[in-house]
């Protein structure tokens, strides 16, 4: 790990001033940053410790009914907050399907947004990587690409964004609140992370020295609470990044879908909102045929970034269908359901044709 200058400012204004120094990085829990520093992947000259900044650890219900999640709210605290979990169950389920209990106890909301890709070539400081060293090339191309992108990738970078939390946030129109030397601004989470294009080193809509202060969920986002799921498939039952994941939310009006929300994780360098699929579902009955059409639309532009990840395209379609099917059956009483366990009843999907009728969570054990 490189030597760095450490500073612990007492206010947001002081933090932003301290972060103007070249090579400065904000330090939250450090669960990703310290790991990368140990590997020599990032070498910040200064760490600006934001963990004591007043007010940023608050979780507030706003006057309009929305919720503001302070940048420092820990993943586990957010997921287990009774009001939050009830209003945004897919977000709680996503949080609790990520990392391990130890990491969720430490990791912050803003840190989750700012975590780096787990592309093994990015994490290996000796491999060419356009994200780590612009212009050096991409060692992942033609390499071991089983977990790489199938949507929105470029010849400069085929990495994926690893967050679970961000997937339902994108689906639910979350907003990122940002403060910097030039003042405050906000940006939709959906457009916060950037696709690689020809500049994969530019990962987020965040200028040097800008600080995420909160993530906000609009009041409409709670309208999907009765029919929301986050479904994650991974290479082992727990404590692994998604191969593919999906957040699905339905607002039902009688036997029709009034509005659908869909996003995919593990398929692109950002949480992938599937707006065409959402449009197709509006006004339709929640059945398997429609779900498959929506899934086809969501993956219409997908192409493998390597031979080894072609399977992710059909897997993503099936995960979307299953997430929609589970959402239609209703949000389970207890969240999170055990998200990816093959032993958990709440994972087993009812057949798509009987989605609306089948109870989730039957026949466990």
């Amino acid at each position, binding site marked *: 790990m490189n030597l*760095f200058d450490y500073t612990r400012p007492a206010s947001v204004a002081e933090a932003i001033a301290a972060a103007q120094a070249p090579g400065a990085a904000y330090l939250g*829990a450090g669960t990703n940053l*310290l790991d990368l520093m140990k590997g020599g992947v990032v070498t910040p000259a200064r760490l600006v410790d934001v963990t004591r900044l007043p007010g940023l650890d608050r979780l507030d219900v706003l006057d309009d009914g929305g919720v503001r999640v302070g940048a420092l709210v820990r993943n586990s605290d957010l997921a*287990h907050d009774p009001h939050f979990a009830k209003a945004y169950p897919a977000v709680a389920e996503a949080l609790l399907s990520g990392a*391990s*209990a130890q990491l969720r*106890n430490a990791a912050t909301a803003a840190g989750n947004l700012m975590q780096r890709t787990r592309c093994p070539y990015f994490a290996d400081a000796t491999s060419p990587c356009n994200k780590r060293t612009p212009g050096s090339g991409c060692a992942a191309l033609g390499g071991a690409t089983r977990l790489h992108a199938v949507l929105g990738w470029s010849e400069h970078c085929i990495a994926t964004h690893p967050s679970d939390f961000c997937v339902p946030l994108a689906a639910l129109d979350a907003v990122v609140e940002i403060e910097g030397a030039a003042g405050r601004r906000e940006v939709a989470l959906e457009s916060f992370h950037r696709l690689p294009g020809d500049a994969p080193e530019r990962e987020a809509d965040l200028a040097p020295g800008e600080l995420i202060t909160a993530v906000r969920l609009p009041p409409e986002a709670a309208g999907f609470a009765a029919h929301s799921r986050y479904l994650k498939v991974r290479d082992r039952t727990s404590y692994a990044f998604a191969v593919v994941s999906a957040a699905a939310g339905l607002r039902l009006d009688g036997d029709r879908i009034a509005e659908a929300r869909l996003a995919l994780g593990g398929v692109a360098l950002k949480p992938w909102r599937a707006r065409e699929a959402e449009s197709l579902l509006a006004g339709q009955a929640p059945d398997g045929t429609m779900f498959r059409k929506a899934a086809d639309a969501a993956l219409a532009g997908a192409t493998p970034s390597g031979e080894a990840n072609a399977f992710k395209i059909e897997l993503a379609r099936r995960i979307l269908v299953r997430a929609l099917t589970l959402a239609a059956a209703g949000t389970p009483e207890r969240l999170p359901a055990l998200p990816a366990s093959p032993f958990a*009843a709440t994972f087993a999907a009812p057949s798509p044709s009987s989605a609306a009728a089948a109870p989730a969570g039957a026949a466990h054990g």
Partner: protein
Amino acid sequence: MIPLRLTVNGTAREVLLEDPRVTLLDLLRERLHLTGSKKGCDRGQCGACTVLVDGRRINACLALAISLDGASVTTIEGLADGDRLHPVQEAFIAHDGFQCGFCTPGQIMSAVGLIAEGQAGTDPERIREGMSGNLCRCGAYAGIGDAVLAAQTAGDGQAAGVMMREDAA
């Protein structure tokens, strides 16, 4: 030199850090000579370094000590009351929750944290999920799961009310 104050296993400790790079794990092992917390991967993947900070289990290897100034830390050395073992320690012995023992301090601290969190109840599947941040390369998972379940059951009797299991076949 940077002064750092921590309460470790109930005792106030002050350390002068000459370097901000020291992790909580290295501070515990190298400066305070509490070598019960183990350095397995040093990258947050194995859980052998699990300790409680302000009552919550975290990976000590991925926390900068200096950032935790003022915190209260509990390590495996702080669990027993003299010769009287903590119930989770007793359960690991009773259920043979180890083989070589290297991961055991982390497993036990993680289990103490898990029980305090109150989320897993007595559902073995939720206990396994809650313990997934702790690897055991000997593969003593069956005994570990039994030990945590037994400690959970003995600890507070919170049982059927929080269970997800249903009788339906």
